[in-house]
């Protein structure tokens, strides 16, 4: 085969090829991160500037007291996530975390459907001292929490 590269240039070509591949990887990663990273929303943000439907996001807030209902199939629940200023209806099908209950904090992973209901694929509730979703740790001390407290 005639494609044997001039010996002198081999190292350079190798380095360039490797760099090209790595740059491609970095660009791909940057592009995918922009599209696929799921951002964290409070209910107020979800209402004022809703994310595109079907885009993966996280919604964090308090499960409003009296809003938790179980559908007849026994495994689908509906509830309202509130941060004191806004409310977002949400639905989830599955086994809920043990500490998921009315009046406590939750971070729901999922997407907003076109009719404005948040469809959760996964619920993160405060498990124990050692496992706190990052968003919720901030909420217990942060502004969102105070808002919720004030609204009670």
């Amino acid at each position: 085969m005639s494609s044997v590269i001039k010996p002198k240039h081999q190292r350079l070509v190798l380095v360039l090829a490797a760099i090209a591949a790595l740059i491609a990887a970095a660009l791909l990663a940057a592009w995918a991160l922009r599209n696929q990273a799921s951002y964290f929303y409070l209910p107020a943000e979800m209402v004022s500037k809703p994310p595109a439907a079907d885009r993966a996001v996280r919604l964090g807030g308090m499960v409003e007291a009296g809003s938790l209902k179980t559908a007849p199939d026994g495994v689908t629940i509906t509830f309202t996530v509130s941060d004191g200023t806004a409310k977002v209806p949400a639905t989830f099908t599955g086994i809920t975390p043990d500490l998921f209950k009315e009046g406590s904090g939750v971070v729901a992973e999922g997407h907003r459907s076109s009719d404005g209901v948040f469809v959760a694929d996964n619920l993160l509730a405060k498990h124990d001292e050692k496992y706190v979703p990052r968003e919720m740790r901030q909420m217990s001390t942060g502004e969102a929490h105070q808002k919720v407290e004030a609204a009670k």
Partner: protein
Amino acid sequence: MGLAALWLAAALAALQLISGFLSLRVADNPLASVVRPTAIVQAALVAVAFLCLIAVFWRTDLSVALVAANSHSAKPLLYKVAGAWGNHEGSMLLWVTIMALAGGCVALLERRLPEPTILATLAAQAFVSLGFYAFLLIASNPFARLDPVPTEGQGLNPLLQDPGLAFHPPTLYIGYVGLSVAFSFAVGALLTREVSPAFARAMRPWVLGAWIFLTLGITAGSYWAYYELGWGGWWFWDPVENASLMPWLAATALLHSVSVLASRNALRAWTVMLGVVAFAMSMIGTFLVRSGVLTSVHAFAVDPERGTFILALLAINIGAALTIFALRAGTVSEGERFAVVSRESALVFNNVMLTAILGIVLLGTLYPLLAEALGAQVSVGPPYFNPATAVFVLPMLVVMGVGPLLRWRRDLFVRVRPALILPLLVMAGVALWLALSGLHLLPLLGIAMGTALLMIALVPLRGRRLRTVTLPLWGMVTAHFGIGVALLGIACDSAFSTERLVAARIGETVAVGPWLVRLGRVEPVTGPNWTALEATLAASYAGAAPSQLKPQARSFWTPPQQTSESAILTRWNGQLYTVLGEEAEDGRWQLRLWWKPFVTLIWFGGVLVALGGVLALLGRVASDWRRHIATAKIAYRRQRQGRG
């Protein structure tokens, strides 16, 4: 006593560092003869310290703060002992113990390299160890005492009370720390400008060993997450999982480039660089897990200040190594050359792809941190990782099939073409058949490629008499075959899994895939440190006699926490996975059932890959040993002739 041993070991590490470096500067330095014994004694002392820690956990000596915080007298003995390394301080002690033992082994066994290189290697090893000694003694003393002595311990996180978990962290740590030896060899070789095939051959068993443990650790960890977390998934792209995946990717790349260096004396600077990167990934992994900067499903150890310490160590070690690399890389002369179509090229391609995947995983793992620094809260999950890594994994697997068939230096593609035709035809056939059944693109590609890989992986054995095939070749074939098996498992799981989530009455029957599952009863049961609700399920496959499954919803009382214990029924063609949820208001019970065809292939593949590593390691060690005996014999004969 343990603490005293630890201080002494730290002092010896300092001595080892200083004497090692001094003997580099001054020729015929008397200190040079001190280095090896120091390394060995240091290893023995740390081992004593670690045994002391195990002993206090064994006795549940609550006057030791660490025991009080992590153990409980009512815990089964296995978990008492495993508790010694199930926490931050203990795991760091385990880290330096393994590191010192590895250093001791190098000092004891390694005779092939020029003496200065060994000394520099041991000095580098001591430098890294010293950082961790400082960390243990200053920031996280495992032997700190409590006064007054508490009456009872706080217990171990119940999720960690599992036999698999007792061995999972040590396995990963051995892998991480094995890479520290590769790192030290790389630094040692740079310092003495001895980047040679001999250096690669000395480093290779360590890389192989570390890689085997990493492979096993990741496989076991994945299976643990699968059955213990009760989510039915086997890989979550969780930061802690990524923390173990990244060193594995780097080690895999290193493994392949080291073999190029050993047999062809090419890729010199690149191999050294990978040695540094692999250990950097180990340290980043430890940093991610131990600092808690990233919260995740299994971030059990969270302490920001300690994270800073590890980060500082990381910066010092890697910064120093990269500086040496930058200063010395120019003096590492160019290695042998090779053509575009050659085994070297295939291995270079493998390396570049692995590095790209490594970069993607690293970016995805750290991106939430970067974003948070800029004020946005972001989480990155499978929608990012799956497609972004697949772009590089698939071409890499293609080359993985072809590469081993190529010759070193230069080859013609025409020569290997006949061997590829059959697998390609099969692959096309499988792909067509699956496409007709309306499968998604990625699982389809996965199954088709997995099938083809199983066949191609065996091609290097073609035309050879199986008894004469060398162990390293068997190792490579087994490992590549294992990758194909795992790929098939992954693709089948994502393509054919069926899931049912229902609220069932007692006596009701639920269908999932080919299974009929009947909920018999739900009753309370108690264990040594938990109570649980246990469901009795009778599952029958396609009308066969039913077997029993007993998933539980467990409540631990020290510390108070709920976990769900899934129950799994394994058949040769897949697993039935059952989880018990809560009781609904009308007396129905939530049940989550999965039928996962061929999911077991994932871990079976992982074990095969590790087995391949073991075969290769045995082969290398055996041939080194034979060479050692042969040279010893020659030397002996010469000596006798000299006398006669």
